[in-house]
């Protein structure tokens, strides 16, 4: 009896040893942890990010990393957009040997992660982590609260607001603007930017309301729409995303709200489906829209749409993984410090032209687009016969903003 047990245990121990032994691979696997909401109210946004990163990592592995003997691999960690949960999963990821993390949903999370990464890298330089941010756009992250280990691939909120307000001011039929946002660091930044940049631009243009709602808590937006109507708003400037944007535009369509939306994040499939035909003319400011007239991007988005049954929107996921791949290739190692030194100041020839990672604050400079929903575009959304039509393209150098970043922790 005892010997049977002993033999069983020995077999078990052997099995465990085999399973945990590193597999014989010629390639070095570089894991990238995506820390985003995979459950809860914002799961849709997080899952969309996951699809884009799976896609982007394939591109990077087949592109800059081909033949280097290194390969990126995605690890998905759920943070429910909570800064506290993010820190827990970050700790776990570091303990498991992950050296590259990426996140995009929620600037509140981004601040927590940036801070934790900076502390970790100071205490344990051997286990340094590089943080790539694909969508958290609070300007502070690359200004007063900047951190050398944080690299942002999306344009920051002020860069976007600058372009968006230029466009809004040029629209002669817009007179009364309502600024509507989510109540956390990013929403506050958008509101502040909008109020500052719309001030004294045109004598007949006024801001008739500025409001913030708690993140992901509101189900029925009709009372807010009634308020906008009451204020006589003919334009709504909003940085809302996820369900807070989808339900907002849905309520607008239901109540036949006449005003136009000037948004950051209208490009998601389910949001466009809800705004419907009443969304014609609604604008986005983004580093990507679905009808960019570049054949290479066209082919890529079609491929994505076919494989994931979703509309490609997070272009920054692709630039991020390509730039990471390129940096690893040039550094010749996957060590975060060496890779970070290459990444800072790197120029990558993207399908949209040369894009550069600013060395002084680690903010990507890339073309920025203003586009509006319209019928008859080459690509249309699956649920509504409309797509985005380009209104303006702002070149990378014209999007740059002065920075106050000093990098207290530059290596």
């Amino acid at each position, binding site marked *: 009896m005892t010997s049977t047990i002993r033999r069983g245990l020995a077999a078990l121990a052997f099995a465990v040893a085999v399973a945990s032994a590193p597999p014989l691979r010629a390639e070095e696997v570089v894991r990238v942890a995506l820390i985003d909401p995979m459950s809860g109210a914002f799961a*849709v946004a997080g899952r969309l990010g996951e699809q884009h990163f799976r896609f982007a990592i394939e591109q990077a592995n087949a592109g800059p990393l081909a033949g280097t003997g290194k390969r990126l691999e995605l690890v998905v960690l759920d943070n429910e957009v909570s800064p506290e949960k993010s820190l827990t999963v970050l700790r776990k990821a570091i303990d498991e040997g992950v050296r590259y993390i990426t996140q995009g949903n929620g600037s509140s999370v981004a601040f927590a992660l940036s801070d934790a990464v900076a502390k970790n890298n100071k205490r344990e330089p051997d286990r340094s982590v590089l943080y790539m941010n694909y969508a958290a756009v609070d300007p502070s992250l690359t200004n007063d609260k900047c951190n050398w280990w944080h690299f942002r691939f999306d344009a920051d909120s002020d860069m976007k607001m600058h372009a968006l307000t230029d466009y809004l001011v040029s629209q002669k039929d817009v007179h009364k603007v309502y600024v509507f946002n989510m*109540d956390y660091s990013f929403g506050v930044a958008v509101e502040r930017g909008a109020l500052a940049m719309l001030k004294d631009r045109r004598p007949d243009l006024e801001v008739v309301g500025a409001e*913030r709602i*708690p993140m992901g808590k509101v189900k029925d937006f009709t*009372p*807010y729409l*009634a308020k906008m109507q009451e204020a006589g708003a003919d334009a709504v400037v909003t940085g809302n995303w996820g369900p807070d944007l989808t*339900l907002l535009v849905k309520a607008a369509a239901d109540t*036949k709200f006449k005003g136009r939306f000037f948004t950051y994040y209208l490009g998601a499939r389910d949001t466009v489906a809800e705004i419907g035909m009443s969304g014609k003319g609604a604008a986005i400011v983004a580093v990507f829209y679905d009808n960019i007239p570049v054949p290479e991007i066209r082919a890529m988005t079609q491929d994505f749409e076919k494989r994931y049954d979703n509309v490609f929107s997070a272009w920054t996921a692709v630039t991020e993984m390509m730039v990471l791949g390129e940096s690893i290739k040039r550094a010749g190692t996957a060590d975060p410090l060496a890779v970070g030194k290459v990444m800072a100041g790197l120029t990558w020839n993207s399908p949209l032209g040369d894009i550069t990672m600013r060395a002084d604050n680690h903010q990507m400079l890339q073309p920025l687009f203003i586009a509006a929903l319209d019928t008859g575009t080459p690509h249309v959304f699956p649920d509504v016969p409309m797509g985005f039509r380009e209104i303006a393209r702002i070149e990378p150098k014209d999007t740059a903003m002065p920075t106050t970043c000093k990098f207290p922790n530059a290596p």
Partner: protein
Amino acid sequence: MDQLLLILLNGLVYGLLLFMLSSGLTLIVGMMGVLNFAHASFYMLGAYVAFTITAVLNFWVALIVAPIVIGLLGAVVEQYGLRTVHRHGHLAELLFTFGLAMIIGEVVQLIWGRWPVAYHVPPELDFPLFSIGGTAYPAYRIFMMGVSLFMFIALYAALARTRLGLVVRAALTHPDMTAMLGHNVPRVFTTVFGGGCALAGLAGVIAGNAYQTDPGMALALGAIVFAVVVMGGLGSISGALLASLIIGMVQTISIALDMTFYTALARLGIHVDPTGWLSDVWAISISRAAPVVPFLLLVLILAIHPQGLAGSRST
């Protein structure tokens, strides 16, 4: 004036929806003494089942069939699940419903996917019924209101006028005595549980397309439904109606109020120090705090009257 009318209408629709969700739960909680954590999950299931039926047949069939399906499912859960764990006490029952909520949440994602489904308002009702001060009022919202009111009247009549209602009310307050008199109390429990779930399912059918049908919808409403039940008083239908309407109204009205707490209190004759240690709180505008207001109300009512608005017991 127009604005006030709009606020009242919006508050009424939202309040009645809350009532539909909470009426079933209040009966279940009142009768069985079990906080059913899975209640909002049945609401979500109602929306998803209605989505599927709408895709195959049409919305009107879904309106009838989906609540029946959810009700039957609820009855099965009670008969084969809850009753089995009942003998292990309330904690076991609580954990059972908690686990059930998680299972339903995962199953929904397995069957219908992780993305919101395209469950839309039926074209017959997708038009603005009238317009108040330039804001079109969707016909579907009036329909929602009608369904909720009809259901309240039906439920109230059933409980007040029928023999089954009499037994349910008796079992609610004196389960042992009712059993002594020869009534099958466990069956009454099953009926009430199934009926409560059917109501939650119906709420899902009519709210899923007005808002959004996604795997997070149960979580979003779960907490507020508990607030309604506790506020109204456990087991009290009229209390639940009152609490739902109050929460619906107060929340909608607070959204419309742009003044800060400081100015609001000043109007009421209460002057607070705008620079003191609570200055951040006084400077928040009421509209920003709107989604928290129901919970503030709950705390307030529990502090003053622990039995809830219309409840007779506090446990």
